[in-house]
């Protein structure tokens, strides 16, 4: 609960800090805010389930773990943004303020215990993201992306809200336990249909946010159009929050009607895996490939939701963490490399930008390689265990066929993830010097280190929860 209050306040403070003459203070200040929020988050560790705001928000260790992942990712993203110093058009105070506000939304989604809280969280998060997507005001792609995101997001929100009202109509409550109580004991009849319809519509709204197929169409365009730093934010923080919310919703309210919804999620998971992985193979732009890779990872996470067995919770948490760390590394390297190599004044985000990276900057090439290996799920990286835990959760429930599809699709993944490794190690490129700020380097190395550490000893993490 503390980080929600703290970050709301800090968001306003950040906006006012923007009025000061020196813009250099912004980055350290926001990083400090995030550290305070992180500390505040773990103050409630092991304090047991706590309820806040008239029982609308629930804080337990699962909430705190998700919060931790979100805040840590945010910290790394803020740090590698470099305070937006290199772009004179940028407005760092507003960017940071909006990101802090959207973090508040994300934390609400993680801890909600009441559907209104979920809705408010989703909206706070999304509205900020619409604006940030279009923050590159003079870039047509960015504007287009923002408008697309907004239109489709509004459309999906409509469904979500409709779903919430139907659920209220069926059960007479917004609270998760009461919905759970109703759903577990209801007779098949007209109410059950209203509840089912409400659940499906709410799920559709949420699945849109985590870019599951067939509601994924916005993702490649928006991820590619948005400035890379906000794409990173979207593909880590937003996705983690979305899955935390889906997990809480399904495990908190609808275990009683598991038989009804699991096949829907399973079908969507398979479709998402197919679309994400196969779509990624035909891309020439690294950034667009990462967008598709984001879709495919949503597919893997959906498998854990489909199973909703005992290991699912840890699987989702571990996978989100592993995925966030690697994604931050991948986008971080992309930002550095594309800035140095431009085509017609625009950053070069194609695969060939990475040609010869191993000679130009071995550290970046290594960081990139580890992150790709982790995304592909190669052993000794965190990503491997993430996938492993997810597959175990499906096996626990006895859904083997979905694991088979997922494993097949992850072999497809190796193809497109390794393309960039091949580019950076085996292809020749111009000897461009790539400058990396020391702090930036620290963050990349830290993320890589954690990826390898969790790859070597996944139990460290598991012991924590």
């Amino acid at each position, binding site marked *: 609960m503390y980080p929600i209050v703290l970050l709301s306040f800090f968001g*306003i403070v950040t*906006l*006012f800090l923007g*009025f000061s003459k020196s813009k250099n203070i912004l980055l350290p200040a926001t990083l400090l805010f995030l550290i305070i929020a992180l500390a505040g988050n773990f103050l409630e560790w092991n304090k047991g389930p706590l309820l806040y705001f008239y029982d609308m928000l629930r804080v337990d260790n699962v909430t705190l773990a998700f919060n931790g992942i979100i805040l840590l990712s945010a910290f790394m993203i803020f740090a590698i943004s470099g305070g937006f110093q290199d772009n004179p058009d940028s407005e760092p105070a507003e960017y940071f303020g909006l990101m802090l506000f959207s973090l508040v939304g994300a934390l609400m989604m993680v801890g909600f215990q009441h559907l209104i809280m979920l809705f408010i969280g989703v909206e706070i998060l999304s509205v900020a993201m619409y604006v940030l997507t279009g923050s590159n005001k003079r870039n047509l792609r960015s504007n287009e992306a923002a408008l697309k995101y907004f239109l489709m997001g509004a459309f999906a929100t409509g469904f979500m809200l409709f779903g919430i009202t139907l659920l209220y109509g069926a059960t007479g409550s917004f609270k998760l336990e009461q919905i759970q109580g109703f759903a577990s004991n209801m007779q098949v009849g007209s109410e059950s249909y209203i509840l089912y319809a409400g659940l499906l519509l709410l799920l559709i709204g949420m699945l849109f946010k985590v870019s599951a197929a067939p509601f994924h169409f916005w993702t490649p365009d928006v991820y590619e159009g948005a400035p890379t730093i906000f794409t990173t934010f979207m593909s880590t923080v937003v996705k983690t929050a979305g899955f935390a919310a889906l997990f809480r919703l399904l495990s908190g309210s609808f275990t009683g009607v598991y038989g009804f919804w699991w096949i829907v999620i399973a079908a969507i998971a398979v479709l998402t895996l197919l679309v994400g992985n196969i779509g990624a193979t035909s891309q020439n732009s690294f950034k667009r490939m990462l967008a598709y890779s984001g879709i495919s990872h949503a597919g893997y996470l959906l498998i854990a939701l489909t199973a909703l067995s005992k290991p699912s919770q840890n699987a989702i948490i571990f996978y989100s963490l592993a995925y966030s760390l690697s994604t931050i590394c991948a986008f971080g390297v992309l930002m550095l490399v594309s800035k140095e190599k431009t085509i017609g004044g625009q950053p070069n985000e194609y695969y060939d930008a990475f040609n010869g990276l191993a000679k130009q900057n071995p550290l970046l090439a290594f960081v990139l390689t580890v992150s790709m290996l982790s995304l592909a799920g190669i052993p000794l990286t965190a990503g491997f265990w993430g996938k492993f835990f997810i597959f175990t959760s499906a096996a626990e429930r006895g859904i083997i066929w979905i694991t088979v599809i997922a494993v097949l699709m992850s072999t497809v993944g190796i193809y497109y993830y390794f393309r960039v490794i091949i580019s950076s190690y085996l292809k020749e490129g111009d000897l461009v010097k790539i400058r990396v700020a020391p702090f930036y380097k620290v963050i990349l190395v830290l993320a890589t280190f954690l990826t390898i550490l969790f790859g070597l000893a996944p139990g460290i993490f598991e012991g924590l929860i």
Partner: protein
Amino acid sequence: MNNTYLPSDYLPILVQFFLAAAFIGGTMIVTHMIGPSRKSKLKDDPFECGIESVGDARTPISVKYFLVAILFVLFDVEVIFMYPWAVNFKELGMFGFLEMLLFMALLLSGFYYVIRKGVLNWEE
């Protein structure tokens, strides 16, 4: 009084709904069918008489209008919160008062931000 209604009790409403829709639809179709329709260039002009029109009717309006309009709606809507508070002022007591102060502080800080950003500066 009978408080339970069967779906069939709503039938008159349904009938009226259909009648209303049919009336609107019917009138529109009938007028198109029976009225004479002659088209010419002059008749399709925006102005059939007077001076000839020049340029596009859709001139861009400064974005400031929208900003001010949105800000107006925003603050207007927020102030609505004060009505239920005022009605229940006594019951809510000190707690309600402090909450409202906090709310106003947040609102005012937003207002201050808007002014400092120069949104209300028309000439710039």
